[in-house]
């Protein structure tokens, strides 16, 4: 992502975002509620009303900024929704089969993810219909990762889930990193980051519509724990360093 500005209609949400995510890398975007993390993911994929109004998005050197969401997905940029909508009448198992067919993913890979994410018993249900928070997150993570994306954009897969689901989802992320998927993970809690500690390449803090700072796990996590997001922002605004 090069010099990206994000807007929703006439409202600018983020300015001058630069992120470079390498092959099999795990980057984490953290920040308080309302800091623009979800807006960034939606804009990158092209989910209305969010839009990249300036700057460029590249995938392996190709400019995909103006590609519609389905074209980006087919090229390997796939978003996992924070709150995926219920799709009545669409059976989860059939939908998963259709995705696997479209993305030409082997059954063994799908089965591996299904086992890790424990979604087997959700397969005869309608997509996200009457599912618990943990079930929805596990299923959405499953459907996203089974497309074997080049980069998975995961919007708070940890919000509203219990510890078991959190462990399960973290295990799945580790597995797909090993299979060549890169990940941009959005969260506003440090819990999941800690579970993925050995896999995290860079953590980025978004605050007040801009990228406040980026760094390694050992640089960022202690600072956030000590000062909180707003405390860090305050130190920056005073011209100091954290």
């Amino acid at each position: 992502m090069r010099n990206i500005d994000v807007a929703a209609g006439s409202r600018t949400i983020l300015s001058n975002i630069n992120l470079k995510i390498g092959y099999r890398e795990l980057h984490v975007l953290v920040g308080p509620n309302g800091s623009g993390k979800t807006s960034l993911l939606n804009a990158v994929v092209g989910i209305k009303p969010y839009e990249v109004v300036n700057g460029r998005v590249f995938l392996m050197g190709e400019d995909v900024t103006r590609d519609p969401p389905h074209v980006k997905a087919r090229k390997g940029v796939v978003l996992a929704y924070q709150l995926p909508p219920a799709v009545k009448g669409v059976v989860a198992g059939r939908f998963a089969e259709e995705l696997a067919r479209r993305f030409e993913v082997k059954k063994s890979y799908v089965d591996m993810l299904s086992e890790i994410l424990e979604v087997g018993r959700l397969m005869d249900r309608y997509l996200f219909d009457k599912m618990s928070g943990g079930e929805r997150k596990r299923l959405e993570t499953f459907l996203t990762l089974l497309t074997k994306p080049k980069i998975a954009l995961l919007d708070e897969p940890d919000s509203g889930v219990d510890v078991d689901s959190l462990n399960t989802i973290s295990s799945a992320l580790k597995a797909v990193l090993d299979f060549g998927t890169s990940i941009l993970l959005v969260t506003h809690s440090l819990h999941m980051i800690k579970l993925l500690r050995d896999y995290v390449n860079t953590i980025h803090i978004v605050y007040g519509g801009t990228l406040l700072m980026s760094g390694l796990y050992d640089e960022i996590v202690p600072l956030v724990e000590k000062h909180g997001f707003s405390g860090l922002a305050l130190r920056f605004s005073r011209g100091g360093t954290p």
Partner: protein
Amino acid sequence: MSRDEVLKALSKPSPYGPDVDLNRFNIGEPETPSLDTPGVEKIADRLGIGSWVFKKADYLQVNESIVARSMSEKLAKYGAIVLPTYEALKKLNWVSNYSWRLIEPARDKYVAATHLYGRELGFFIYVPPGVKVREPIYTCLFITKRGYAQLLHNIVVVDDGAELNLVTGCGVPDQPIGSLHVGISEYYVGRGAKLTYTMIHAWAPDMVVRPRTVAEVRESGEYVSYYVIYSPVESLQTYPRVILRENARATLNSVVVGGGRSIYDVGSAIVLSGAGSSGEVLSRNLGRENSAIYARSRIEGAAGPSRGHIECLGLIEGSEAQIESLPEISSSTPEAVLTHEAAIGKISEELISYLMSKGFAEDEARSAIIKGFLSIEEPKLPPQIMEVVRRTIEYIASRATG
């Protein structure tokens, strides 16, 4: 009821749907039965059944000619009977006990015309007590003649403890035909018996369709229906009624896909007349182009304890279509628990965006959503029938987005 009373009813309009002048249509004479009638194969394809049904159909009527009627070995072995209604009435004295008992001949002009001029064409099916006919029985009623009135009287008797899965396909070739189809259907489900009834309609934009159905379900019996209409019509009006005795159950599913300038006035009514009875009405209505859909549903609680639920959902595509959802619940006993939910909306942009984020182009996303919306899974239908319904829904969804 005297003939004069029925004659008088020829000018009696139905309380629902547009009134139609019956003089527009001719009543034909029997002709040499033939499957060579142009367009017949196409009709079977449009119904999702496929032309194999010509070999397998237990009853196939094209216009007023009965082209095929089988008393296959399997049915004969069971002692089950499939006959043209007129023949059943002639050969079997007891059939008259079931004829014109649930539907009054003077109910409206369409029923009166069928009673007076229909010559008891249509099918009669009987399943003896305790006999479970697992394999579906297929009946097909096609029209290929222009300006013609097809007036049918069907009687189905599923005796105590018996089971029958009946599939009826009604249709015309996909071209102007300007005909009328009236199907009077009286269904009797015995004590502890079960009838599943799937009906698929594929008509033309100038067809007038007026089915009249009443089912009586005796103690602990069960009736499950699944109705799909997806083609344009001039107008279609039907309001099947199911009467449930003690501990009887019914589920009435309907899928209406509107198109063209059609008027669909499609209802489902259940009368909970026995203690312990329960009924459910599920309807999905997709309004497209300039179509108007009147989705009626009614559950009457006449005895308790009993339960009834109506779920009526509508989806509008385009600004010219119209859906009116008219759920009614009525009770004369405090022990009937009756509920309903109804909603009409458009295809959610959020759903389209979601599916696009997973690689579906916008038209593919719309098609998948429509398919999901129209798919009422009915676990009580045999899998092979559900497969026919699914094929039809897929056909509809693939065409719904152009």
